[in-house]
């Protein structure tokens, strides 16, 4: 007598997913450092010529440098950006000097808690960082950046940071079923909180798996379907960065990007060659080359 629920299919293409983002939208941007950045999604936003986005993230790298370089994002609330271990993010530097990009600075913990607060439905979260520093007092575009209150229980000073509920959360995960139940291998960075903060949530994944696989081990689910609106299958979607248990970063490509983007002309050339000059993510991967990608695959038992 049991009527089995038809599984809801939330799959769309990368192109369709990027089309959902209107100019001026506010986005939680997933991944942390070199780990699982939504690189393919950044490329597609550039291809579709999105403008004036506000990006919320803890620490991001080449992915948001591309968004700044292509004038897709004009505002960032974040804690850190660079091409870690290599140098400063070249495009963001240039766009800041031009006045095309503004940064509101927080700490990594403050940003992660702002996402948790948004996800929890409370308007702020307390923390003990930022006290006594310019992070508390110097503001770019937010009317209220942080407030210091006296704890009604202990009398100590506590910083309140405003919660974030962006229009969209964009996260790249290990695997997901078509209903949107996502697993994330290795570190989660701030993606667990960030994926729950957005009003709409787009999950990109290295692979789509059967829902019975997910449901046979429910304690492995990092993002349950209830939070998720759209699912995009996107293998090698973080390339040239890394995905735990899937593939390593392509250091040669990252270094080439860094060197080339030191000049505006170099960046334009990179963008034309690897982003706007290719039809879609699959064409980008083909351009990189199958053989090169295969060499980057994680070698068990190492997750890289």
């Amino acid at each position, binding site marked *: 007598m049991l009527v089995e629920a038809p599984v809801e299919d939330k799959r769309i293409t990368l192109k369709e997913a990027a089309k959902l983002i209107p100019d001026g939208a506010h986005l939680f941007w997933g*991944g942390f450092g070199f780990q699982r950045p939504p690189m393919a999604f950044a490329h597609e936003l550039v291809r579709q010529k999105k403008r004036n986005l506000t990006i919320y993230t803890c620490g991001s790298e080449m992915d948001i440098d591309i968004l700044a370089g292509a004038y897709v994002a004009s505002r960032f609330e974040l804690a850190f950006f660079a091409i870690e271990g290599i140098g400063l993010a070249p495009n963001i530097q240039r766009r800041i000097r031009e006045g095309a990009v503004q940064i509101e600075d927080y700490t990594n*913990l403050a940003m992660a808690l702002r996402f948790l607060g948004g996800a929890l439905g409370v308007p702020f979260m307390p923390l003990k960082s930022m006290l006594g520093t310019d992070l508390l007092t110097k503001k770019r575009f937010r009317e209220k950046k942080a407030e210091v209150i006296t704890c009604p229980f202990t009398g100590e000073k506590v910083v309140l940071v405003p919660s974030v509920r962006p229009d969209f959360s964009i996260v790249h995960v290990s695997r997901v079923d078509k209903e949107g139940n996502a697993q994330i291998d290795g570190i989660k960075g701030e993606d667990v909180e960030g994926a729950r903060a957005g009003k709409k949530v787009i999950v990109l994944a290295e692979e789509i798996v059967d829902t019975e696989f997910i449901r046979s081990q429910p304690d492995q689910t990092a993002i349950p379907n209830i939070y998720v609106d759209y699912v995009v299958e996107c293998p090698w979607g973080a390339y040239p960065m890394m995905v735990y248990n899937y593939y390593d970063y392509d250091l040669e490509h990252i270094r080439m990007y860094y060197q080339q983007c030191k000049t505006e002309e170099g960046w334009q050339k990179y963008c034309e060659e690897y982003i706007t000059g290719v039809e879609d993510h699959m064409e980008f991967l083909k351009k990189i080359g199958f053989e090169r990608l295969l060499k980057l695959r*994680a070698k068990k038992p190492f997750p890289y």
Partner: protein
Amino acid sequence: MEKNYAKPGEYTTLELMAVCGARAIKNGEVVFVGTGLPMIAAMLAKRTHAPRARIVYEAGFIDSNAIDIALSIADSRLGYRASAAIGLIETLGLLLQGGRVDVGFVGAAQIDEYGNINTTYIGDFEHPTVRLPGSGGGNDIVSSAKRIVIIMTHERRKMVKKLDYLTSPGFLTGPGAREKAGLLGGGPSLVVTNLCQMDFDPETKRIRLATIHPGVTLQQIMENTGFDLIIPEHVPATEPPTYEELAILRAIDPYGIYIPRPAQTSSS
């Protein structure tokens, strides 16, 4: 057992700095580090005098036992034989702000005489010359770890009277200021540069010269320091690396990613 120290010319300044960083870690301590020199220092400590030190990387790797050098604090390499791989709120919130981190390592683009740190802007806030990477977890670490080791290059434009931007709190304006601001952690305890090691005077909370690296003169240090450095009567020389430390160090970073090999850097 007598220590077998390397002689000048047998090691580079970066190697000496890594060794100084490693020696600042005690066995059993919880150590919060980032990529670069601090990572190498922590890995060296674990392989020498502090095998039970537990290294935490803010991306979520806890008690990491990495055997390969990572480029990013979120690098999968750091997950090798870790106790746990979780996330930022775990490391920066529950471990660090929760009071469980003994020593945190940070870098600095500028520091002032109270150990306050700038990693955000060079130049005026309204019209900065250079935009640096920002706090990342730096402010969180310096706010809440029990003590802080700062590793940086010793230059006059970096050791300044007044910071362009105060990113992470040293002793702020002096004794009692951290407590008054509501900060939990113990503040900076050691600054390791390419010229010397400095600590903080317990009374005034101002930076004080602690040891001078072999071959460096006091004159050199003063010329490269933009604030009034406290100089005690007797300043010992920095203990050089031992041959054992150097061998382990070079095995940790065999390709010279963070510490170019002596042969490659004959000018240093």
